């Protein structure tokens, strides 16, 4: 009896059922037409109108966490973790909806709430600076890079970071 060598690798090759399902058996090129894509983009734009409300909701949550940091210093680490998580959620989509500044500020918040052992009062204060900047963006509907206002907001946040990290 010949000994069978053990299998080192298995390759699974399947029929493309998904293609049959979506393109049928019709010959010719299949794709997503520019018209369909455009219709979809328009729907996305429409949904984007709700974006500021969504961000406002998250800012309220961040505000609550900031309040906890002030009131219960022993829970700061926990709060920072939560803030870190919310900031992550926030930073993802700002650019898609025309608010890249939200992404910039959320990213900064995300970065500095990453794993900290001792959290000082000035770091807690810095959370507030971020929230103020975000609120200003949403309240003023500062879209795009925000021009002069955007620059000012970014500058004052950077000043705060400078001030509190010294």
């Amino acid at each position, binding site marked *: 009896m010949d000994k069978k060598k053990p299998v080192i690798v298995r390759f699974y090759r399947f029929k493309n059922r998904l293609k049959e399902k979506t393109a049928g058996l019709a010959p010719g090129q*299949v794709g997503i037409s520019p018209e369909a894509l455009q219709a979809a983009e328009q729907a996305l734009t429409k949904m984007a109108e709700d974006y500021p409300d969504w961000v406002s909701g998250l800012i309220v949550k961040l505000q609550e966490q900031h309040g906890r940091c002030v009131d219960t210093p022993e829970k700061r680490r926990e709060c920072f973790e939560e803030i870190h998580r919310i900031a992550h959620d926030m930073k993802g989509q700002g650019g898609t909806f025309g608010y890249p500044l939200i992404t910039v500020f959320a990213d900064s918040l995300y970065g500095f709430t990453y794993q900290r052992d001792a959290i000082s009062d000035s770091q807690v204060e810095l959370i507030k600076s971020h929230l103020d900047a975000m609120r200003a963006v949403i309240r003023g509907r500062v879209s795009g890079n925000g021009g002069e206002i955007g620059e000012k907001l970014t500058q004052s946040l950077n000043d705060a970071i400078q001030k509190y990290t010294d």
Partner: protein
Amino acid sequence: MTDYDFDRVNILLAEDSPFIRSLLVNSLKVLGVGNVFAVEHGGDAIHFLQRVKNEPMKVGVQQIDIIISNWDMHPIDGMMFLRWVRRHKDSPDRFVPFVMITSYTEPERVLQAREMGVTDMLAKPFTIKNIGEKLINIIERPRQFVHTKDFFGPDRRRQKLEHDGPERRVLTDKSEGVEIIRG
């Protein structure tokens, strides 16, 4: 050019942010996807797939064609979910295309997902065009699955690149120890 007919396509979407979730559901619907089942995190997604396996009539779907999942979710994240889909004995389809959404763009994270058998990654922020491209990629360029002692997932080699040197890959389809399964 004819448009794809996504009407019979079933997508399972796991995303914890309600805003992004409704956004994705709507985007997929506008692209014509017939069924989008949206859940809040990996745990719910696993539970849903178990139900698809055990009581498809009740759930109203026989098979999920594509999974789209966020990476960063609580308590069960996208990687744990992917691991379950690819490796768990209760998984209804270990070969299902799996797209991971992430705002992490570090190469190590992408690599990590690839080693776990991800099909494709969708980076945040995404556009409708990005989503469309992922769908087309999945439909037009499916990859064979590879199963070795330390990997199970879609072939990590996506392209066939020409090269001048001698062929030094040890295994071919006809080598001993290579088993090809067609279906």
